[in-house]
């Protein structure tokens, strides 16, 4: 009911408000110290010793309406804690959250009807009931009237193929089906803002594609603001315009996906095939590739070397080489591709060039470090 009134009368003020506004969010947990040694069981019962763990330290950001934000970070970095604070599940130790201008902690009930939340690991559906019964219950919980419910479910059913398991009890659904059903459930009351905590975890390629497609439609056609956490970098690359990285409880990056790529400065790989062998310039004769080297053999790590071209100050690193090919890495922030190729051309007659942009997985590995 609340939701209906608030949406029927959108104020100018509300239009200008950010979808999410987090300021100086901190969260620390106290855990009792577990006693060791004799009678430890009894002693820890009465112990008053605590260790304080700072899960989230001073996180602040603003998400505009219609944004699609990816929130990534290694396990235990504070992702879930942040999501829980944003959705009003946990109270921050300090700092504040505003969702479309409403404080989810002071005014949880009002805020809840404007939010959709999906936890990838847990279902909000009724375990023993057919999927459609869960929707009936949720519709009543959120005060969605029948006409709206039928219309929305019709739309979702088409996009998410809900029909195939409409009458199946939730416990009998596959993980992919359950996730689709769960996302539809979170959208049933047509919230402006959708939080998803690892929505693609454990799903197969098809299920992931289906869900990504749906989220894209929600964002692009219905203008929903979406924030998701994930460990799947395809989610980020295919969906998110903006990515935030959390590490050790702090926000370590906030910007575009390309920007993240750039910031880390991952090298581009260039694989050059020479027509008739090559001679490495600027190094001793021992680095000239001899004919008895096995084709396709990789250079041992300790043989990798930084090559400093004589006429420029940039670095190329040999990743691997064979009799006729050479694979090098260059950081394109520092080196223009043409310069790198010109240098490589000095070493022999180039027959073919292959270039590979850094893998997003690789970027993340470096970010998580």
């Amino acid at each position: 009911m609340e939701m209906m009134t608030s949406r029927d009368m959108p104020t100018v003020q509300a239009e200008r408000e950010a979808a999410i506004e987090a300021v100086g969010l901190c969260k620390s947990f106290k855990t009792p110290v577990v006693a060791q040694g004799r009678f430890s069981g009894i002693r820890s019962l009465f112990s008053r010793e605590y260790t304080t763990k700072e899960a989230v330290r001073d996180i602040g950001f603003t998400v505009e309406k219609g944004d699609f934000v990816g929130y990534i970070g290694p396990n235990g970095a504070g992702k879930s804690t942040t999501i829980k604070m944003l959705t009003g599940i946990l109270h921050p130790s300090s700092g504040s959250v505003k969702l479309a201008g409403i404080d989810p902690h002071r005014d949880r009930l009002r805020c809840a009807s404007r939010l959709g939340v999906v936890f990838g690991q847990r279902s909000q559906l009724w375990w023993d009931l057919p999927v459609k019964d869960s929707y009936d219950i949720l519709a009543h919980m959120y005060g969605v009237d029948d006409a709206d419910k039928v219309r929305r479910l019709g739309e979702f059913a088409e996009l998410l193929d809900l029909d195939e398991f409409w009458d199946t009890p939730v416990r009998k659904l596959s993980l992919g089906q359950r996730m689709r059903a769960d996302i539809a459930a979170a959208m049933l009351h047509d919230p402006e803002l959708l939080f998803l905590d690892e929505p693609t975890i454990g799903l197969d390629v098809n299920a992931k594609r289906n869900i990504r497609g749906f989220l894209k439609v929600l964002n692009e056609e219905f203008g929903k603001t979406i924030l998701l956490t994930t460990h799947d970098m395809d989610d980020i690359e295919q969906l998110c315009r903006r990515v935030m990285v959390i590490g050790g409880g702090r926000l370590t990056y906030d910007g575009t996906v390309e920007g993240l790529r750039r910031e880390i400065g991952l090298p581009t790989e260039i694989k050059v095939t020479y027509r008739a062998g090559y001679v490495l310039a600027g190094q001793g004769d021992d680095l000239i590739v001899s004919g008895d080297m096995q084709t396709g053999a990789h250079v041992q790590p300790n043989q990798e070397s930084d090559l400093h071209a004589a006429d420029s100050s940039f670095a190329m690193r040999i990743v691997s080489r064979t009799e006729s090919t050479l694979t090098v890495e260059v950081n394109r922030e520092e080196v223009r591709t043409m310069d790198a190729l010109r240098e490589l051309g000095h070493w022999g007659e180039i027959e073919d060039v292959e270039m590979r942009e850094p893998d997003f997985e690789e970027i993340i590995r470096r970010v998580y470090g």
Partner: protein
Amino acid sequence: MNERTIGDRRVALQNYIKLYLILIRTSVRSRMQYRFNFAFGTVLAAIIQLSEFLMIAIVLAKFGAVRGWTMHEVGYLFAVMTLAKTLYRTFGNEVHNLERYLVEGELDQLLTKPLPVLLSLMPRGFRLMPGELLQGGAILAWALGEMLRTGQVTWWAIPQTLFAIVTGGVVLFAIGMATATCGFWTTRISMLQNMTEDAAQTAARYPLTLYPGWMSGLLLTAVPVGLVGYVPALYILRGELGLWVFPVLAAASCLAVLLALRFWKFGISKYQSTGS
């Protein structure tokens, strides 16, 4: 902050009741889908209940009376307790099962719902308990039937007993909710439930005069299970106390629920500030 008017509240309440009715309907329907399981569970529940009663009945058959309470009177205590507990667990089963929500983190889900946590928790598990209902009802009919026949009670006893069952269910719910609330600090509550629910309910199936004074005192105040069957039975069956028992029961059960609710709200706020 909350600008809900009284009209809004009424709509919200109506909506909630509708929600609950839907839940009852779907729950019945889904149980019926698995007829065998349902029948199996019902029969076993009835057997369990019956064997529990047999334990008491055998003692009574062997010794005749417990502290001056006849077999039928003790049967009455047992039946009222069973029915009150059935009432509580039919609607409040998920409060009793809060530990599962805390351990598995499902409580987080409930905190994202536009309803107070208690109200979104309760409809998660509406439970049909025909086995308990049948057994409790049968024993009550047997006990009251005999007492009606001997003229120990009048027909007035029936509405009075129903009243006692309802207030008793409310008292048990309040005890259950207060016990569950401790879980916001300790997460594990089954041990506490063992004391405040299982043991206490078992104790109150017998006349409280059986126990040492401190214990019957506790069972009337701190864990007031004595209010469920024992106190109303003193008036309804034995003509002790007075008619004032009923308003007192109503007031006591309301007070218990209000106190438990207060405690629950405090517990939730602690949970939200510490997390799991």
